[in-house]
């Protein structure tokens, strides 16, 4: 039996990802539980964003086994599987449409009615007053909130966040963190976030993992990760030292 432990939403075994022969990810094992908030930290180039693309089934692993709900994921996953997961990217690219149409886009893709869910999502991120604005006229923080709304309106089983608050002002950082936290704790959405901000990881995550050179150095409950790290590289990273 090769399935992950009971309750594991994702199970990765000996997963690697290479581009043009260069390995950027090499994970011996990783399980992600239903309903958890997992933060992945590490320096640039550690393989964090690559891992998110694998978890969103946007790319297949080069080798190894990726399972979702105990089932192996094919290299070309079916659309209904792809639609259980969504990602909010560090630099969201919005469509040249109104904010509301951007938020409604995923519902339209699924052939679902554009109903009160769109307005509720816009209200959740505080953009209802700007719903009819052209999306390209939004500020950086507003764009990121619109991107979050277009993900939340889909009520995904898994919400992946790739440095969602990088380069944002404290107001928008606080707002986005509150929404993500509410989504995870009140609605039970599994959240996997990549962040350079260890304080953010500490505020939001139930578990934190450190990636270095494509390998998972340590994965632990948030308190243990910060208070009693087992690996000296984790301890150094938590202290704010450069680790590679």
């Amino acid at each position, binding site marked *: 039996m090769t399935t992950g432990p009971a309750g594991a939403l994702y199970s990765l075994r000996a997963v690697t990802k290479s581009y043009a022969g260069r390995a950027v990810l090499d994970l011996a094992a990783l399980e992600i539980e239903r309903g958890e908030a997992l933060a992945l930290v590490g320096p640039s180039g550690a393989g964090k964003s690559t891992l998110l*693309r694998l978890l969103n089934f*946007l790319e297949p692993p080069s080798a190894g086994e990726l399972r979702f709900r105990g089932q192996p994921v094919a290299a070309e996953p079916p659309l209904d599987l792809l639609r259980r997961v969504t990602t909010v990217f560090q630099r969201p*690219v919005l*469509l040249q449409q109104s904010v509301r149409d951007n938020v409604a886009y995923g519902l339209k893709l699924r052939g679902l009615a554009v109903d009160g869910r769109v307005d509720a999502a816009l209200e959740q991120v505080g953009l209802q007053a700007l719903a009819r604005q052209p999306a390209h*006229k939004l500020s950086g923080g507003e764009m990121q909130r619109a991107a979050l709304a277009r993900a939340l309106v889909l009520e995904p089983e898994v919400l992946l966040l790739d440095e969602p608050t990088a380069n944002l002002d404290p107001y928008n950082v606080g707002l986005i963190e509150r929404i993500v936290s509410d989504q995870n704790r009140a609605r039970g959405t599994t959240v996997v976030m990549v962040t350079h901000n260890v304080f953010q990881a500490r505020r939001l995550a139930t578990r934190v993992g450190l990636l270095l050179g494509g390998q998972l150095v340590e994965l632990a409950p948030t308190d243990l990760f910060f208070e009693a790290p087992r690996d000296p590289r984790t301890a150094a990273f938590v202290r704010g030292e450069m680790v590679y």
Partner: protein
Amino acid sequence: MDVLPQLLPIILLSLSVSGVALAIATLIGLPLGALLALRPVPGKRFWELLIYTGMGLPPVVVGLFVYLLLSRSGPLGWLGWLFTAPAMITAQVIIALPMVAGLALTAVEGLDPSLRLQLRALGASPNQVMWTLLGEARSGVLSAIVAAFGSIISEVGAVMLVGGNIEGQTRVLTTAIVLETRQGEFGLALALGTVLLTLTFIINYWLVRAGQRRETAAWRAEARPGR
């Protein structure tokens, strides 16, 4: 004025031949251009080069090719299309298709490369990604359609060869201009030229307005409240 009854069928045939050819070229060319921009097609650079070369095809060469194809002894001679409107449409599709596909390809390739990944992450199927990206590249797509229309409504070499300029059957504005010029009817030729230019202007205006309306619908905004 007794010129109008003669002129009207010529105008209508010009519009219908080029309109149908443009519609066919657009329906094939837009997905083709997007496919080449988005998918790892084997020999992609070769196909791109072929399309870009096709954008510069001399209409008379296309006419010759279609003529040989449709002539009685040609491989498609059994269709009996030579010197008919379908032959003219075929030639104009060959002229317009590379233009639509090539400019659509360039327009889609010019979009933010991250957009495609983000659309997939929102659950778009490959086809939905393609049509969304073509919509995002609508200015370039519109340019492709306008340029293709301009090239076929104004070309004379291909339609002359495969249509034969038969009065009441295959005579279009451009072949009529050539005929009247040869007969020394310069006034009539100029008048036909003016009609052609006016029609082209009106259709391009309509195409551009249609594109702008789509954008305006998306951009129509209430006054942004202060924050």
